[in-house]
């Protein structure tokens, strides 16, 4: 189904050539999972056999958004929530490009939430990598659209009362053609999934659960990144093809990971082309 190359091992993979080493050290806290996700993305580009000159990485605001500044790709750090409309414009302006949005749950599901559902609905050919750490990390750990019920954040000191989004369910319902979820404790699976998403025509969404030890972790009894990694290991249940309705994440209990959606649906560009061709044909008659 997808044109994947022979797997690359960690040792063979040269991530450094993919990163802007002049910008190191990065700003991410010790134990943060975003770096691992960037690594998986880098290897996925290689695995998918994409020409890095034709890959563009767009991010919004937040800790995950910083990735745009660290990769040796054409990248753009947009304002809060606007990564998807920017990426839409970029893809329409240059359909040759493989446009990837790499951003956080707050950026994509809250302030950019409207753009997310509409991009999926239109099925524009983009890949979204959504780092979900259950809170707004960069601004100090406030409750966000993915914060589980009862979880503590700096704005829910006695536990969250707002029902969170189940991202895979939302994206499946909105029309995405590829939806998966992994954690940074699953680097191999994550890498493979991103590679699949990259070559999949249409709107692909990969949710990546990632520790935020500095804020969300500290407030929820996982003060080290490793604690959260242990939690992922303990709570993750791999179930490919599961009903995304069941992918809700609570403060405790299992976390479903795997691929939920992998369907074929004409992309926005396919649909446009059909109409163009039809009109052209009519005119030529």
């Amino acid at each position: 189904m997808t044109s994947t190359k022979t797997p690359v091992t960690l040792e063979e993979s040269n991530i450094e050539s993919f990163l802007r080493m002049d910008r190191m050290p990065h700003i991410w806290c010790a134990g943060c999972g975003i770096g691992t996700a960037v690594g998986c993305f880098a290897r996925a580009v290689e695995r998918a056999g994409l020409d890095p000159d034709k890959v563009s990485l767009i991010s919004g605001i937040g800790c995950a958004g910083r990735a745009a500044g660290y990769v040796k790709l054409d990248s753009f750090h947009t304002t809060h929530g606007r990564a998807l409309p920017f990426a839409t414009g970029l893809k329409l302006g240059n359909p040759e490009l493989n446009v990837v949005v790499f951003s956080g749950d707050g950026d994509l599901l809250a302030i950019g939430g409207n753009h997310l559902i509409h991009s999926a609905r239109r099925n524009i050919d983009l890949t979204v990598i959504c780092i979900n750490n259950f809170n707004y990390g960069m601004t100090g750990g406030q409750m966000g659209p993915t914060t589980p019920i009862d979880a503590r954040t700096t704005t829910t000191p006695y536990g969250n009362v707002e029902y969170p989004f189940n991202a895979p369910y939302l994206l499946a319902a909105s029309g995405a053609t590829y939806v998966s979820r992994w954690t940074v404790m699953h680097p191999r699976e994550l890498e493979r999934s991103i590679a699949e998403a990259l070559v999949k025509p249409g709107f692909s969404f990969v949710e990546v659960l990632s520790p935020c030890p500095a804020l969300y972790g500290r407030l929820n009894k996982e003060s080290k990144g490793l604690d959260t990694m242990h939690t992922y290991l303990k709570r993750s249940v791999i179930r490919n093809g599961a009903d995304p309705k069941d992918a809700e994440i609570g403060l405790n209990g299992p976390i479903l990971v795997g691929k939920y959606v992998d369907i074929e649906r004409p992309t926005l560009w396919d649909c446009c082309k059909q109409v163009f061709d039809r009109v052209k044909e009519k005119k030529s008659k």
Partner: protein
Amino acid sequence: MVKGRMLQGARAMAEMVALCRPKVISAYPITPQTLIVEELSQIVADGDLEAEFINVEGEHSAASVCLGACAAGARVFTCSSSQGILLMSEVIFNISGMRLPVVMICVNRSVSAPLNIWNDQQDSMILRDSGWIQLYAENNQETCDLLLQAYRIAEDHRVMLPVMVCADGYVLPHAYEIVDLPDQEKADAFLPFYEPIYKLDVENPSTMGAYADPEKYMETRYMIQETLKKSIPIVEEVARDFSNTFARPSYGLFENYHVDDSSTVVVALGSMAGTIKDAIDELRTEGEKVGLLRMICYRPFPKEALYEALRNAVNIVVIEKDISLGASGAVATDMRAIFQGRDASPRISGFVIGLGGRDVTIDDIKLAIKKAQQQFEDADFIGLKEELELEGIDA
């Protein structure tokens, strides 16, 4: 002994907001505003303030929630910075257009791109035309004092317009300072419960924000303009009442720091006034006649009071943390307009300083003053890096 407690600015502001007893608080995290909202959410969660707190999905929603709650007759609060203020701007105009007394803090921060989280005053300056009253604070004590006054002014039935209290990002909310806050009883006495003139009420149905065709729209703007002009003495009246009640100066429209005997007067807003006062103190010990007019109430723009205060100055030195790109600094432009067609015609130079959090030093201020005394400057950037001074583009 100094009265008060050693508090972080954000904590002091949050406690002051709580003393104002808003019924609905809505906000979205953005640096450097977040600390205030976090403190408030804690105060609400602890049950120390009976209010609904909602952390929404973006600033556009935060302002809209406040608009809705205020339309229902509730006292509300929100708070934002930079891009958040810009994202709110659609609703900001709606709030003043609907004549609803929303109060917010703008924690001043620069505007993207490039992305920069540090302080200047470009964000609130962009909204100077929105029909909001804008009050700029020098320090945390003043931010708190102005907050209490802001609700009084906004909800005054002669005004019924929103108020934005502007506090420089990081410099204020992140700094620790001794702040004296009133007790609840005194705050309540100064700021009674909000009594709306109009609200959305099933017993008394009405429509707000409805369609106004060309036959009606212009009058709505005229009415806001007239009300804003008439609210200048009300800002002064509330400040006087505040000073009398709390035995602490509140300056009203602006603070006069050695203006009367000075031939050169600096005009500035916000926290950099501290640095400017230090520069002025040094210059005055050297015998120079220099003063500072620190503007607090920038909208409505108190033209008459400013003219009277500055009519004897020879040199007016406007130093500001914003720029109307392609023109001049916003404050310098406004200051120049005051003297059009009047007897006094001081030279009014403009300086742009401290954009995106660049340090403002005593030497920078002295340099601006010296330049202004030598010749007219339109919008001179102070503190540029030397390597950026391109040939032909003189900095």
